[in-house]
C-alpha cells in the first residue's frame, strides 16, 4: 500500500485497527440505473476490497456519484446486483450533510448515538480532524474546511469498515486537503477501506491502491494501482487520456 504506514507516533490518539481479512469485499455485478431516458449506470461490474484506498474517478456526470449512492443503498438499481457486506459503511456527500442549527458537538452527539459510537473513539475523531477547537460552534457557521471535516467526523462515528466519500477535497485549501489526506491514509493503514469518488485523481495519487475509471455510466478501467506502470504524478494524465480517447471513440461511433 502507498501512503503513510503508521497511525501512531504523531501525538494524536490511535485509530483502532481492523483486520481486513475479517471483512467481505463490496461486489457490484451488472449494475444499471436509469432515470427516465437517462442511463446513469450502464452495467457496472466492480469489486471493492477491504482495507484498500479505492478511487472511483470520472468526469462530471459519468455516473460515479450514482454508483456511490447505490452502494450506500440510497439509489435503487434498475437492474443488477449489489452486495455490501454486513459491515458498517460511513459516508460524506458532496454537499454538507449535517444539522446546520446544531453545534459541532451536538451533531457528533446525535450521529454518534445513531451509530452507537464509542465515546473514546468519538473524541479521537474530533482530535484527529482538528475539530475540537470548534466543538461548540454552530455547524452552519463553520468555514468550508471545518464543514467538510465535520461531515467526515460524522461518517467516522461508527468506525466504518468502508468509508465512502464523494469529492471529499472539493473547495478546500491546500493545508486542509493535506491533513485530510493524511488522515484518510492513516485510516486505510489501520485496515479500513476508503472509497473516493472524484474527478481529480491527482490529489489522491500517492494513496491509491485501486483505480476505477468511470465514463458514461460504464467502467473504462478497473485495475490495482500496482499494475499501472506510471508514477503518481502522471496518474491524472493517464486518466484524462483514457477519458479523451473514450470520448473520441464515442464521437466516432456517433
Amino acid at each position, binding site marked *: 500500500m502507498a501512503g503513510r504506514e503508521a497511525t501512531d507516533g504523531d501525538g494524536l490518539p490511535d485509530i483502532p485497527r481492523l483486520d481486513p481479512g475479517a471483512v467481505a469485499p463490496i461486489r457490484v455485478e451488472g449494475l444499471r440505473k436509469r432515470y427516465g431516458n437517462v442511463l446513469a449506470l450502464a452495467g457496472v461490474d466492480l469489486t471493492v476490497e477491504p482495507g484498500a484506498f479505492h478511487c472511483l474517478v470520472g468526469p462530471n456526470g459519468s455516473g460515479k456519484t450514482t454508483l456511490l449512492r447505490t452502494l450506500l443503498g440510497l439509489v435503487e438499481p434498475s437492474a443488477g446486483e449489489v452486495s455490501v457486506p454486513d459491515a458498517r459503511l460511513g459516508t460524506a456527500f458532496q454537499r*454538507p450533510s449535517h444539522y446546520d442549527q446544531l453545534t459541532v458537538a451536538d451533531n457528533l452527539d446525535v450521529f454518534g448515538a445513531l451509530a452507537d459510537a464509542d465515546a473514546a473513539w468519538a473524541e479521537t475523531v474530533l482530535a484527529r480532524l482538528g475539530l475540537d477547537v470548534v466543538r461548540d460552534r454552530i455547524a452552519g457557521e463553520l468555514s468550508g474546511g471545518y464543514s467538510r471535516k465535520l461531515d467526515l467526523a460524522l461518517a467516522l462515528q461508527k468506525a466504518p469498515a468502508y468509508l465512502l466519500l464523494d469529492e471529499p477535497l472539493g473547495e478546500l485549501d491546500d493545508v486542509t486537503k493535506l491533513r485530510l489526506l493524511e488522515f484518510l491514509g492513516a485510516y486505510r493503514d489501520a485496515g479500513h477501506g476508503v472509497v473516493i469518488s472524484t474527478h481529480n485523481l491527482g490529489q489522491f495519487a500517492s494513496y491509491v491502491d485501486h483505480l476505477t475509471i468511470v465514463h458514461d455510466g460504464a467502467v473504462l478501467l478497473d485495475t490495482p494501482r500496482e499494475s499501472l506502470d506510471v508514477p503518481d504524478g502522471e496518474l491524472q494524465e493517464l486518466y484524462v487520456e483514457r477519458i479523451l480517447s473514450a470520448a473520441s471513440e464515442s464521437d466516432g461511433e456517433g
Partner: protein
Amino acid sequence: MSLRTILRKELLWSRHRALALLFVLVLLPAAFAGASVFFQSTLPKDAPVAVVVEDDAVSGAEYDVVAASFRLFSRPVRYDSEARALRDLERETVYAVVSVPPDLGDPAVDRVNMTVTIDGDMTPYREPSGALVSVVSATMNRQLDTRVVVDREVRGEERKLASYLLPSFLQILVFTFAFAYLPYNLASEEAVLDRLRVETSLDAVVAGKLLFFTGLLAVPLLVFHGLGLGLGYGVNLLAPGAILAYGLTFLACGAIATAVTFASGFGTTGRLLNVLVLFAFLGFSGLVYPAGFFSPLRRGVVRLMPTHYAMVVVRGTTLRDLPPAEFGTWLGGVALFALAALVPLKLAMIAYERGT
C-alpha cells in the same frame, strides 16, 4: 439604465419561476375569488333544528304547522326523543331543540307555551335564535287561533364570543403549525436526510419529527389554557377529549403536509401547495361558525371534513365539559383519518427515495 437592467433581470427570473408565479398570481387569487361562493348567506337560514313531539296527543297537523313555521328560518328535523335531540344539540348536529306541546290546534285552548332550547355555549347562534323565535312566534300566531307563546331557553350560561373563540384559535394554530412550520422545519434539514437514511431510516426520521412536534403542541396548549384562566373564560383546554382531538388533527395534517413536501421533492411547488391545503382546512373545518351556518355547498364539504368533527369534539369537551366518551365515534373517525393520512405519506416517501 441600471433600473432597466434590473427590471430585465426580474423578467428573466419570472420566466424561470413560471410555476410559482402561476400559483401566486393565478391559482391563489382564483381560490380566494372562488371561495366567495361558499359565503352565500350571512345568517343561517337553513340550520337544522330538532322538533320534538312532546306526547302522542300532538297530531300530525299540529306538527306540520310547527315545522312549517320553522322552515322559514331553519331546517326542522323531527325527533321522537328529547334526550336524543339534546344530545345532538351538544354535538352541533342541530342548533335548537323545539318541543311541540299538545293542544296547539285546539280552539278551546287560549294559550299554549312552546320552548325553543339553544346551547349557551353556541355563541354564534345566540342572535339568529332570537330572530328565529320572533319569526316562529309571529308565523304561528297568524296561522292558529290559539295564542302561542314561544319561549327561548338557554342551556347553561350564555358564553361570550371571546371565550367561544379560544379553542378555535388554538385549532387554527395547530393547522398553521402542521402546514407551515413543519414543512419549513423539514426542508431546513433536507441536506441531512441522505445521511440519516444511511444511519437509520426515513421512516424513523419522519416518525420522530411528527411525534416530537405533536408533543410540542403541549406548549401552546398550556399557554392558551393559562391565558384562558387568567381572562376568566371558563374554558378547559386541558380536557382529555380536546387534547386528543388537537393531537390527532396535528398528526393527520402533519402527515399530509409532510407527504406534500416529499412528493414535491422539497420544492417550491410543495410549499405553495401546503399553503393552499392550509387554506382549505381553515375554510372547511367549521372553526368559528359551525357547519349548519354555511351555504349548502360549503356545509356539504364541511360535513365531509374529519377536522370539522375534531372541532366539534374540542368545543364539546372544552366549552361544555362533555366527557370524551360522548364523542367516541368521532374521535375514532379522526384517528382513522390520521392513520389514513400516513398512506400518502408513506407513498410520497417511497417516491422520494426512488427519485433521489
